[in-house]
C-alpha cells in the first residue's frame, strides 16, 4: 500500500470515527450511571436533522448545532422520564426513541422542505469547515510525522477535535471528580449512593443529559461537517448501534472507547475503498464482511473469549427508593 493511500484511509478513519466516538462516550455516561441507552441512534438522528435544517434556514451552523442539541436533549428527557421517573423499561424506551426519531425527521423534513426527507444542500459558511491546524503547511515537508500531522490530524471539523478532547475530559470527569465517582457508583449500587444522601434521580438525569449533549454533537458532525452537506433520511445508518458495540468493546472506559471507535472507523474507511484493499492484500475481501465485522467482534467480546466485558452492575434496573 502506498503511503498516500494509507494517509487517506487514516484521514477518513478519524472523520468516520468522530460520530462513533461522541455517541460512544454518550453511551458511556448513561450506562455508567445505570441507564441503558439504545436510543443513541435516535438522538443522533434528531440532532443531525435539526442541525442541518436550521443551518440551511438561518445560514448559521452554530445556531443549527444549538437547536440540534435542544432536540437531542428533549429526546434524552423523554428517555429519562420513562426510565428514571416512571421506572419503565429502558430498552423499550430506547427502541421507541429510535423509531420516533426515524419517523419524525422524515415527516417533518418532508413538510418543511418537500425534498423527500432531505434538507437543502448546505453551502459555504453553513457547515462546519475543515480546519487547518497551525503549522500544517510548514510541517507537510517533514517526512512521516509532518505529513501525518498535515494530512491526518489536521483538516477536520471542529467537532472532530471536540470529540478527541471529550475523551480526556470524560476520563477526568468520571475518575477524578466527585461527580464522576458518584455517577459511577450510581450505576453499580444506587442504594449506597442514596444512603449517602445523594439523589439517584438527579445523578441519573445528569448522566442522561450529558449523553443527549454528546449525541447532539455526533449528529451534527454527520450532517453539517464537511464534506457532509445536509441531512438525508436515516443518515445515522446504524452508527448508534456501532457506538454501543464500541462501548462494550471498550468495556465502558473512555480511553479504550477511543481505541474501539478508531478501529471501527478504520473498518468503515477500508470498506469505502475495496479496490485499494484488494491491491494491498492481494485478495478480495467482501465489503459486507467489513460491514458486519464490528458486530461480529462485539459478539466475540461479549462472549468473553477475548477478555470479559462486565457491564455496570445496576444497568437497566430502575431504582426504587425505599422498597
Amino acid at each position, binding site marked *: 500500500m502506498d503511503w498516500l493511500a494509507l494517509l487517506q484511509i487514516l484521514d477518513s478513519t478519524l472523520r468516520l470515527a468522530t460520530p462513533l466516538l461522541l455517541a460512544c462516550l454518550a453511551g458511556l455516561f448513561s450506562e455508567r450511571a445505570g441507564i*441503558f441507552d*439504545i436510543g443513541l441512534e435516535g438522538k443522533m438522528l434528531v440532532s443531525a436533522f435539526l442541525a442541518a435544517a436550521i443551518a440551511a434556514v438561518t445560514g448559521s451552523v452554530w445556531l443549527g448545532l444549538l437547536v440540534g442539541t435542544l432536540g437531542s436533549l428533549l429526546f434524552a428527557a*423523554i428517555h429519562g*422520564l*420513562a*426510565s428514571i*421517573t*416512571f*421506572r*419503565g*423499561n*429502558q*430498552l*423499550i*424506551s430506547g*427502541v*421507541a*426513541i*429510535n*423509531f*420516533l426519531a*426515524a*419517523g*419524525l425527521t*422524515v*415527516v*417533518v423534513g*418532508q*413538510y418543511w422542505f418537500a425534498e423527500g*426527507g432531505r434538507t437543502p444542500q448546505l453551502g459555504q459558511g453553513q457547515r462546519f469547515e475543515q480546519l487547518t491546524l497551525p503549522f500544517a503547511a510548514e510541517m507537510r515537508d517533514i517526512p512521516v510525522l509532518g505529513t501525518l500531522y498535515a494530512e491526518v490530524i489536521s483538516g477536520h471539523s471542529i467537532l472532530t477535535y471536540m470529540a478527541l478532547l471529550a475523551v480526556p475530559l470524560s476520563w477526568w470527569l468520571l475518575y477524578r471528580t466527585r461527580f464522576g465517582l458518584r455517577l459511577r457508583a450510581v450505576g453499580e449500587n444506587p442504594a449506597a449512593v442514596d444512603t449517602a444522601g445523594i439523589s439517584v*434521580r438527579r445523578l441519573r438525569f445528569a448522566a442522561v443529559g450529558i449523553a443527549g449533549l454528546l449525541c447532539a454533537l455526533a449528529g451534527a458532525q454527520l450532517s453539517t461537517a464537511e464534506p457532509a452537506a445536509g441531512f438525508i*433520511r436515516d443518515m445515522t445508518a*446504524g452508527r448508534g*448501534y456501532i457506538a*454501543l*458495540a464500541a462501548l*462494550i468493546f471498550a468495556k465502558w472506559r473512555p480511553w479504550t472507547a477511543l481505541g474501539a471507535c478508531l478501529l471501527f472507523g478504520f473498518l468503515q474507511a477500508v470498506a469505502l475503498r475495496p479496490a485499494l484493499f484488494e491491491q494491498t492484500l492481494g485478495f478480495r475481501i*467482501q465489503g*459486507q*464482511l467489513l*460491514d*458486519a465485522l464490528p*458486530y*461480529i467482534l*462485539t*459478539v466475540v467480546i*461479549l*462472549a*468473553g473469549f477475548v477478555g470479559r466485558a462486565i*457491564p455496570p452492575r445496576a444497568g437497566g434496573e430502575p431504582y*426504587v*427508593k*425505599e*422498597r
Partner: protein
Amino acid sequence: MDRMPRWADVILIPLISLLLAAIISAGVLLAIGQNPWEALRIMVSGSVGSTYAWGYTLYYATNFMFTGLAVAVASHARLFNIGGEGQAAIGGLGVALVALYLPWPHWSLALIGAVVASALFGAAWAAIPAVLQAKRGSHIVITTIMFNFIAAALLNYLLVGPLKPTGTMETATAPFPEATHVPSFRDMFSFGETILFRGTPANVTFFVAVALCVLVWLLIWKTRLGYEIRAFGFSEGAARYAGIGSTKIIVVTMLISGALAGMMAINNTLGEAERLILNAVEGAGFIGIAVALMGRSHPLGVFLAAILFGILYQGGSELGLMLGIPREMIVVIQALVILFTGALDNMVRMPVERLFARRRARAPLSPPGPTRHPPGRDAAPTSTTPAAE
C-alpha cells in the same frame, strides 16, 4: 396484590395508552398542516373499507402476528428478543433455499417445507445469542441487535452474490417455481363471478399465524414447559430453586421465539414475493415489539394488536397516497405506541391504580366473608402505590 380489577389492567390501560399515542399523533398531523379527522377517515376506509383493503391489512397483520408472538414468548421468560428482524430475514433464507432447490409436487407440501425451514433457520439465528446469554451472561438485547446487522450483511452478500441469478440486476433470488405458490385470499375466497381480495397479498399463511396463536397459548398456559417459562420469567431465583434449569429455559425459549420470527418469511417470501428480496422484513421484526406490548404478551392480545397494526400500516400507506404524508408517519405512530404502552406504562398505570384504590377506600365495608388480604394489612389500603419519591 390486586390493586385494580383485571379488566383495567388488560383493557383500560392499553386503551388509555393507545389514546395518548393517538392524541400526540393527531398533534403531529396538525403540526404538519393536516386534518387529523380526515386522516383518520382515510386510514379507516383504506384499511378496512373493502376486501381489497382487508387483503393488505391482513397480510401485514400476518407478519406482525409472527413477530409479535416471537417477542411475547421471549418476554414470558423475561427475555427481550429484539432480534426478530434478523431472525425473520434468515427465516427467509431458509424458505428461499427449500423453495428453490427442492422439487415440490404440491403447494401444501411446499408450505410445510417452508414452515420447517423458516422455523429452523430463525431458531438457529436466535440460538447463538441464547447460548451466550445462558452460558456467558452476554446481554441478549445487545447480541440480538448485533445479529440483526450480521443477518443484514449476510443477506446482502448472498443476494448480490451467490443467490442472484446471472443476468439480472435486482438483488433478489430467482422466482420460486410454480408448484410452491401458495393460494392467496383471492384464490380461496372468490366464487364464480365475484372476485374478492383482487390483487392483494394476503394468503393462506394468515391461517398458519392464527394456528400459531392458539399453539402458543397452549404452550404458555397449558404445558409444563410453558409453566417453567413463566416461572422463570417471574422469578429466576425461585425457578432455579424449584429445579428449573435456567440454561434450558433461556435456550428453549429463544429457540421458540426465533422460530416464530423466522416463520414470518412464509408470509412475505413464500406467500407474497415468491422469491427472496433484499430487506424483505421491512421493520416487521421491530413492530413485533409494539404488538407484544400492546397485546400484553397474550396470544389473543397479540392477534388483536397485530390486526390493529395491520390497519395502521395499510391505513398509513393510504395516507401517503391520498394526502402525500410520508409513510414514515406510521413509524411515528408505532414509536408512540411503544413509548406509551411500553416505556411510559407506569405513567398511565400509577394514576389509574390510585383512582381504583381511592374508589375502594370510599366503598362501604366489604361484604362479610373471608378476607382476601393477608393479615397485618389494611383491608382497604388508602395508598397502595409506592409514593413517587
